């Protein structure tokens, strides 16, 4: 019998496939070109080095198996896996199939995709039959996932998701074409099988059943056309839909494994990341603005989409607590927080990026407009006052609104007998983090310089701060060459050294982990161990990385007070489920916000510890105070 080599119906598919291949290559080249020189090198090394294997492994686990999603949400994971991995298998074994059973080796891709059409009679003998059984199995696997996907679209609950992302028109078209691909293949194959009495448990049975009452011979062709057409459409639309994440993710994985990071300016990497977002919607579930405050249009998935389609993201960018819960949860590992910060820094005046075409083929001629240089904002700041000391204490603006923490820390310092200097005792200068969070780095830098000078001149070796917001910026952006500690770390150290002895109170304590301290700065253990040392610390499901935001976050400029209150209320009710005596935290802002939302006593770690300093300790400390005073008088200098 004669085997056809070509048929016009494959043209849509061919066009689509070629288009998408060329597009991806071009895109990757552009992205590569836009990388900084250092990153280019990184990528090259990464590609031809050890990282390569890493990447392949990751691609297999994440892009195909979708391990992370499976972990967080099985059904959602299975859906993604069946589609991605299933399709991969289909193509893989399809190609093999053509290679084995085809007339010659190395066939054009369409041969593999439409194998059944070109080899309708195949599949009668044992091995052939087994093989087509395998192919049917894979197809069934995909279809099961597809079924889930369709259900998810109409009721996302079933897939275990609370929210599902909203779609643009072009997404809908792409989605339908995607949905059509496999059913049309199923039918096409079934009809063909029906006509020739081939096919396995799926296509075969379905085929013969159709054949019993349908003119399968005539019906087969249109469905092969449909199959090819939907594939074509899908490929063509890919670049302007969220499905672009499929090819982009591969590139991202290589970049990441080569050690490229987002940084603080927009560039290829952040762009690749935005295109890698598959809008799976896990971030939406994690977002407290969504489930507490009922704000449902600012979550990262939407944010990424907005950036992709070049909408004005200014307000979205600022309507975020920056708690990092989504960042933590993103299965693709997109650095969501840094990307938001980039958008905040870019401000509201990068108008030339707004046009859609400039967006997709970013125009390199006119990049971001250069901001007009501004006069220094804080010229009014007074002559820097400082004092020689070993340890510096920086309470921070917020701590000045919670004197309890401030006083407790001073008590602890006295107890420790260290020669410390309270930098902002009579009202200091802001650390600069709030400005930075508002994307105003230049202004922030002025404050950083101001504070740095005081710290350097004091010649101290350690800087202790009570406010995680301050801690983060001192730690990351000051480059002081001085050890920066949050007071929870400092207290931990004093305890370990035995400098302060503490009584143990049997009070039930629950710890609320401040975002800036935990996810923000990776400090999880010290506060916990300090609390465990002085009180009966309770476990909650929100310990560690999974902690909630109090709602007070300075990072969000747009949140109304009543919305903040809602978040605080929910957080508190979650944390106080075990009816603790004290709700402990390590941040003045968290303390203030939570205290307004509950009757449970809210205390800062410092306050709890200060309350447990034993009497003997106090005596010792009095002596040491004198020492400090003397030291002070001597070592006071300009």
């Amino acid at each position: 019998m004669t085997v056809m080599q070509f048929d016009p119906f494959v043209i849509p598919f061919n066009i689509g496939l070629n288009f998408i291949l060329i597009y991806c290559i071009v895109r990757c080249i552009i992205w590569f070109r836009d990388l900084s020189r250092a990153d280019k090198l990184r990528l090259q090394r990464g590609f031809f080095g050890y990282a390569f294997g890493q990447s392949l492994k990751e691609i297999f686990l994440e892009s195909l198996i979708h391990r992370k999603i499976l972990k967080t949400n099985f059904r959602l994971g299975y859906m993604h896996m069946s589609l991605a991995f299933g399709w991969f298998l289909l193509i893989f074994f399809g190609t093999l199939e053509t290679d084995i059973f085809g007339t010659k080796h190395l066939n054009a891709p369409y041969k593999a995709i439409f194998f059944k059409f070109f080899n309708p009679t195949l599949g009668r003998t044992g091995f052939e039959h087994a093989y087509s059984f395998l192919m049917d199995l894979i197809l069934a696997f995909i279809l099961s996932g597809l079924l889930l996907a369709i259900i998810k679209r109409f009721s996302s609950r079933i897939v275990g998701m609370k929210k599902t992302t909203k779609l643009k028109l072009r997404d809908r078209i792409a989605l339908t074409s995607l949905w059509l691909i496999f059913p049309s293949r199923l039918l096409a194959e079934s009809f063909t099988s029906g006509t020739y009495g081939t096919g396995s448990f799926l296509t075969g049975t379905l085929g013969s059943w159709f054949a019993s009452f349908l003119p399968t011979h005539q019906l087969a062709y249109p469905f092969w056309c449909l199959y090819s057409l939907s594939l074509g459409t899908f490929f063509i639309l890919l670049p302007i839909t969220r499905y672009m994440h499929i090819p982009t993710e591969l590139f991202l994985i290589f970049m990441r494994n080569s050690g490229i990071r987002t940084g603080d300016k927009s560039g290829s990497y952040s762009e690749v990341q935005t295109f890698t977002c598959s809008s799976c919607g896990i971030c939406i579930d994690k977002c407290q603005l969504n489930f507490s405050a009922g704000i449902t249009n600012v979550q990262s998935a939407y944010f990424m989409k907005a950036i992709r389609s070049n909408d004005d993201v200014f307000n979205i960018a600022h309507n975020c607590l920056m708690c990092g819960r989504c960042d933590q949860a993103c299965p693709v590992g997109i650095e969501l927080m840094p990307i938001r910060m980039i958008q905040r820094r870019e401000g509201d005046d990068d108008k030339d990026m707004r046009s859609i075409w400039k967006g997709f083929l970013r125009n390199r001629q006119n990049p971001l407009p250069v901001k007009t240089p501004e006069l220094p904002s804080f010229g009014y700041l007074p002559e820097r006052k400082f004092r020689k000391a070993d340890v510096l204490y920086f309470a921070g603006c917020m701590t000045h609104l919670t004197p309890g923490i401030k006083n407790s820390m001073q008590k602890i310092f006295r107890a420790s007998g260290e020669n410390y200097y309270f930098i902002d005792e009579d009202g200091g200068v802001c650390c600069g983090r709030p400005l930075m969070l508002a994307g105003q780095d230049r202004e922030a830098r002025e404050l950083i310089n101001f504070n740095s000078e005081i710290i350097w001149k004091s010649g101290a070796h350690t800087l202790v701060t009570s406010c995680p917001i301050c801690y983060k910026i001192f730690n990351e952006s000051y480059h002081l060459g001085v050890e920066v500690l949050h007071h929870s770390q400092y207290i931990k150290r004093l305890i370990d050294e035995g400098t302060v002895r503490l009584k143990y109170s049997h009070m039930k304590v629950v710890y609320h982990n401040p975002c800036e301290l935990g996810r923000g700065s990776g400090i999880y253990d010290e506060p916990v161990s300090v609390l465990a040392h002085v009180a009966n610390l309770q476990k909650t499901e929100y310990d560690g990385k999974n902690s909630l935001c109090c709602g007070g976050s300075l990072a969000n400029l747009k949140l109304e007070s009543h919305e903040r209150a809602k978040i605080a209320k929910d957080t508190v009710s979650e944390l106080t489920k075990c009816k603790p005596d004290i709700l402990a935290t390590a941040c003045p802002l968290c303390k203030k916000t939570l205290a307004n939302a509950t009757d449970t006593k809210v205390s800062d770690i410092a306050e709890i510890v200060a309350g447990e300093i034993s009497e003997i300790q106090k005596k010792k400390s009095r002596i040491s105070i004198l020492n400090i005073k003397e030291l002070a008088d001597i070592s006071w200098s300009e």
Partner: protein
Amino acid sequence: MEKFGFSISKGRQINYDSNDRRVAEFIIENEPSFRLCIACGCCSASCTAGSFTRFSLRELNILISRGENDLPRNDLKKCMLCGKCTLVCPRGVNTRNVVFLAKQAFRKFDSYAI
């Protein structure tokens, strides 16, 4: 005018009708809580910047809403956005966003950046 040794003094009167209230309207549109200010002065009292220089958000709010933009335009730069004012405001005015929007508005409406 030299020949007289004096000139015509400018009045201090706020002329509400001829003043440019676009900044105020922009803020109100994007941050309605701006309206809720009762000028209690908590913001100014707790202000970090205010402890170093003449800077009163209370005053700026009033001036902006009257369309007296000259002082706010330059004074707003003194704000450190530290957020104490937001925490102490008895009326729940989102003061940080007010400052943020005001700066944005001046960028938007002024020929030169603030």
